[in-house]
């Protein structure tokens, strides 16, 4: 597996006997593009209808959502628009209105001939790979960002990092992304007999495990962890956050992400994941005419983290080339169920954030009267149009290579 990776690691660098830091710098110079994509996945299926509310369809919305409707007084409606941001998303709303670096992408879905519509794992797989028929699922999945990496002349180790999002969007047949749970935990320093054991560990991991995939994959992953953890610790140790991140695991992921970008190690994409979006029951528990409910607070968490992250990058002078895209399994049904929750729906809303983003609203909001599949919001844009736009207008890459097809570009970039 991963012949190119091994060639890079053991061929060029090992032969030249270069230090890890020098390797990282070389990698930097070799990279064609310094653009960075942050891919935030909301696991479980975010209720787009209560994330961005269509104010011009508010009466219908109220009928569809007898208990879950957000009062007009709480919604954050940008002047001159017909959308209301969820009341938890004050920070993203503020960016939308003032910094103009937020794009609201309405009606994003996978096409109706996708395999596994409305099933979590199938939809996550499709959104992360663009393989709508899931034909590669067992044979060797490649992520949509992995497809982009395939167009680069080289993809050294830290090109793509999974920060608790999933390695899947980043991988291709030649490239295995680095996964980091937390930078603080990413080290291999034995607690006793340290020097002798470190030397012996490296020696053990340098012995190829002939004829067994399980052993060899474990070995190459450890070789990668050894090299990458050393580079990450050296390069990022000077990082000091300039803002206070939310003290949640998502906040920690975003803080780690800023720290990685500070390290200037040639990182070109990072995946981050947020859980808790499968809101079948009592979806907005705790909501009142003034207080936020549980789904509102999930959105608040995401909005606060995104704002802290970009503010930190702006303060550090690192924000110019960083684009964040969100996706989720699916939207949720337009109608609420008998349990004050919502079941698996179809299209949802996505966001793009970054200095290069043309802030605004893209796509007319899906009709709340002409529903798909009886009670689901219909599609306005194939999700691959979002990736195609990112490829062509941000990464400078072929959108057909990234998405595997041809899709209309959107104007948020």
């Amino acid at each position, binding site marked *: 597996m991963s012949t190119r990776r091994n060639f890079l690691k053991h061929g060029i660098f090992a032969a030249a006997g270069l230090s890890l830091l020098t390797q990282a710098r070389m990698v930097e110079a070799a990279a064609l593009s310094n653009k960075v994509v942050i891919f935030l996945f909301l696991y479980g299926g975010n209720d787009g209808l209560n994330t961005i509310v269509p104010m011009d369809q508010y009466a219908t919305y109220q009928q569809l959502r007898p208990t879950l409707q957000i009062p007009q007084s709480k919604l954050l409606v940008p002047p001159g628009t017909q959308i209301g941001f969820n009341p938890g998303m004050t920070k993203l709303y503020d960016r939308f209105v003032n910094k103009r670096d937020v794009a609201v992408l309405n009606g994003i879905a996978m096409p109706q001939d996708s395999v596994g519509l409305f099933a979590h794992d199938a939809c996550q797989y499709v959104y992360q790979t663009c393989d709508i028929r899931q034909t590669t699922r067992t044979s060797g999945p490649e992520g949509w960002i992995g497809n982009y990496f395939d167009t680069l002349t080289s993809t050294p180790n830290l090109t793509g990092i999974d920060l608790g999002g999933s390695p899947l969007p980043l991988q291709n047949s030649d490239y295995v992304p680095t996964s980091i749970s937390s930078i603080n935990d990413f080290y291999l320093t034995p607690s006793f007999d340290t020097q002798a054991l470190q030397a012996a*560990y490296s020696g053990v991991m340098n012995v190829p495990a002939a004829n067994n995939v399980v052993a060899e994959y474990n070995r190459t992953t450890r070789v990668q962890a050894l090299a990458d953890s050393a580079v990450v610790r050296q390069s990022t140790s000077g990082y000091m956050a300039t803002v206070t991140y939310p003290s949640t695991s998502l906040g920690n992921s975003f803080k780690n992400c800023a720290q990685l970008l500070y390290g200037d190690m040639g990182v070109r994409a990072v995946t981050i994941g947020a859980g808790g979006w499968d809101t079948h029951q009592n979806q907005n528990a705790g909501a009142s005419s003034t207080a936020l409910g549980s789904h509102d607070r999930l959105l608040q968490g995401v909005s606060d983290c995104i704002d802290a992250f970009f503010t930190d990058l702006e303060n550090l002078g690192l924000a110019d080339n960083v684009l964040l895209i969100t996706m989720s399994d699916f939207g949720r049904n337009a109608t609420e169920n008998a349990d004050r929750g919502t*079941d698996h729906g179809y299209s949802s809303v996505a966001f793009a954030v970054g200095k290069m983003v043309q802030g605004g609203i893209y796509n007319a909001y899906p009709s709340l009267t002409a529903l798909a599949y009886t009670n689901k919001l219909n599609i306005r844009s194939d999700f691959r149009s979002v990736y195609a736009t990112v490829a062509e207008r941000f990464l400078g890459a072929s959108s057909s290579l990234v998405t595997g097809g041809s899709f209309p570009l959107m104007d948020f970039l």
Partner: protein
Amino acid sequence: MSYDQQRLLAGHLLRRIGFGPSPTDVSAVIAQGWDNYIASQIIPPAQMDSATEAKFIVAPASATDIQGWQRRWYSRMLYSPWQLQEKMTLLLHEHFATSNTKVANAVFMHDQEEFLRSKALGNFRDLLIGISLDKAMLVYLDNNNNNGAARDSQGNPITPNLNFARELLQLFALGTTKLDRYGNPLFDSGGNPVPAYTEADIKAVARALTGWYIKTTTDAVTGVVTYQVLFNPSRHDTGNKLIFGVTITGQTGDAGRNELPQVIDLIMSQSTHSRFIAKILIQKLATETPSPRYINYVGQVYSSNGFDLKYTIQAILTYPDFAGETVVRNQYRTPIEQFIGALRGLNASFASNSTDNIILTWTRKAAHQIYYPPSVFSFYPPGEKAILVNTALTTYRDQAANAFVTSARVNLTTLVPQSGLTPTIAVDYLSDILLYAPLDASVRSQIISYMAGSISTTKLRGAAWLILCSPDFQRN
């Protein structure tokens, strides 16, 4: 290097039906014989004998102490001689993934564990019916108090919560796509996979399963809280349900409770069910990529034995593929298999009243801790076990091995016979009881030279750590 094949295969069996060999297990399997050992493992006693029970960490003083229940469960994996029962209990927990993050009730979680253990080698129909009425599951997938009689302001029915119904079909019993008898997806004439169920089937199943709820009673005198799962006819949808083209006649009053077994029987009568379960069990116990013949055979054993798991598992373990070279030492270890396997191999000793957190800490970091699966797909979806190997997880695994070999629960100078000990003998001894297979010759010589002629506690620990990190140990 040649290695005793009986020993190698006994190690393989013990890693798959349980959590890997303790020092004396392999000779016990060889003495009993493979088939006899399996035949005994598939019929665990209903009640543990007192000597076995005494090895487990005792139940926590408070039933709401989730960590106490975790310690006790992990100690069963470490010390139960009925390893297959414990392995199946864990695999069923992964299959019927339920997380205390949402359930937030240690009593419910522990009761579910006990239920899964009681049916671990029982009948899958009992499991499906029981899990549908399990308190933790009712909370986790929202079927508690699901109202089938709700009406909107115009008097039209409101769809009940579909969460449990969907996962019952998709994750627990059928999968998303119809399968042929070899476990392959079926395609229609247009080349599209044939769905195993429709959105309408999900809704009808959900309607049939409305009305169940958990009743909580607090004793006015003692304050003791008890729970019962009851059926409330007034919240049951009494209309007819069309599921897979078959009508289940809606029942009124208490008879509405009978729709649950009818629905389960209907689901299990789908030809895809036995293939789906056979494939998952083979993937968990034997190989991620089963041969079509293997699935066909096991699926037939399962359905022809009335969905009895013990004969199905016996079939998996005695089928020729199970001992074949594409299966033996060719599976990725889950973190729990890795951690418990290392501790069993090192003969770790936890007192029955231990409050040691070492296993809790590392299973939590590796996100593979009992009672807390990260999603409805548990830790990894069936067939995608390679997800268990990435730079974050290999780092945690090797850090955990460091913690184990330096733990007060492990005593290497007792474990390794000290008489006439040399580095070579020590490395060979340790690799044998940890691998039950040869250690790569080059790795072996590197570990021997690491010891630098010394057999101190430090060097024994270092050697054990290197073996636990070595590519050979990662092969389950």
